[in-house]
């Protein structure tokens, strides 16, 4: 089935940023490609060596920039290339996720998964799942609106890092 063909007019297309570990989930996404498994095109991948290297600031920044949803995915527990990176990551999300939820951010906008290098199928399901879920929630306007209200700033996030010459 081709999602693209079934796409209704003016359907909201959420932007999802996925933070993946190099060894498991990134390779799993590659495997989905090798297997020509079709999935929705809303995801943009940022590759890091390990989920343990993902600072929660990355996620805040992604929302700030306008992401509608975020996926964090790495090796299954016990399979971490660096032995314990994903365990430490899991600790972080154990406190960070409830904090965001407490501040009124829908937990479905920020999802976590373990996807191994062999789970191309699971990658496809996960992406379709989060895209559908976030599409259901609609654009993350409340956060995106923060960019436009309040006093104008000299160095907005959008151009904070771009060099001009």
């Amino acid at each position, binding site marked *: 089935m081709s999602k693209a063909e079934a796409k209704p007019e003016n359907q909201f297309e959420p932007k999802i940023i996925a933070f993946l570990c190099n060894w498991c989930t990134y390779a799993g996404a590659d495997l989905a490609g090798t297997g020509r498994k079709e999935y929705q095109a809303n995801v943009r991948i940022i590759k890091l060596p390990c989920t343990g290297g993902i600072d*929660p*600031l990355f996620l*805040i*920044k992604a929302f*700030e920039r306008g992401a509608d949803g975020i996926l964090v995915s790495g090796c299954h*527990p*016990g399979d971490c290339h660096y032995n*314990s990176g994903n*365990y*430490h990551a*899991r*600790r*972080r*999300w*154990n*406190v*960070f*996720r*409830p*904090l*965001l*939820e*407490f*501040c*009124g*951010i*829908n*937990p479905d906008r920020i*999802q*976590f*998964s*373990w996807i191994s290098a062999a789970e191309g199928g699971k990658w496809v399901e*996960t992406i379709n*799942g989060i895209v559908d879920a976030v599409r259901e929630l609609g654009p993350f306007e*409340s*956060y995106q609106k*923060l*960019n436009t*209200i*309040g*006093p104008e*700033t*000299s*160095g*907005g*996030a959008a151009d*904070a*890092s771009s060099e001009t010459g």
Partner: protein
Amino acid sequence: MIEELRKKAEELLKNGTVKVVFGYGEGSVPERTRPVFITKPEDVNKLTWNKYCVYNLTTYLKRQETRKLGKPALILKGCDARTIIVLLKECQIKREDVYIIGVTCDGVGDPLAEKCKACDVHTPLIYDDLVGEKRENKEVPFEERYAELDEYEKLEEKDKWEFWQKQFEKCIKCYACSNICPLCFCDRCIVEKNQPQWIDPSAHPRGNLSWNVTRAYHLAGRCINCEECQRVCPVDIPLNLLNKKLAKEAEKSFDYRPGYNIDDELAMSTYKEDDDEDFFK
């Protein structure tokens, strides 16, 4: 008790055990106290102790100007003394470099401070000397300790968002919260890092959210609930709610409470293979 404190301070200064005593002195009005730094034995009469001694004096351990005074003795309540355990674990002080005059405490503030309502450290867990009659540190049930959060946790997602936006909107990025916090001891706060600028330093709603969330997150598994950040906030953002929420999650998920046991691994620098992962897909 005040006499006992003064005597102790005098003794420590006289015999050279410490160079300075961090304590509480009388404030401009009777309902206030202020921190005092006694360096001469003859000044010990400036020390006082009453229910208005709400501050956590351990914050002066991170400041250059007070550090310069030499080895301190600190007058610490049970809650404040928890900070010491965290600071020791995080290599910010050495045990032999501080002298702790623990005071037993039945609660401070008028009305009683929120932090005192579910206190289980009436007698400090770590001290060199104890002033005041020893109290039993009765365990307070989990639910009771975090009862303050209930009404906020119950809010609808939309209402939560609105509540916090209204709060964060007020933030003027004065950083009093992190200045007063004894555990915000970085030389360069993340908000001061400008290459890249993760957190917008201007008082803009976008950066305000990032700042307040990050400040709280950086205290996860560390905050000892002294409520100082909230007390000093000039625009009355209930910051401690965020800290408390994280403390609750850390305790629920990792069975960890900072500042209770020097032998416990710091929650955010360790893991268990069977840590909760229900939220993983």
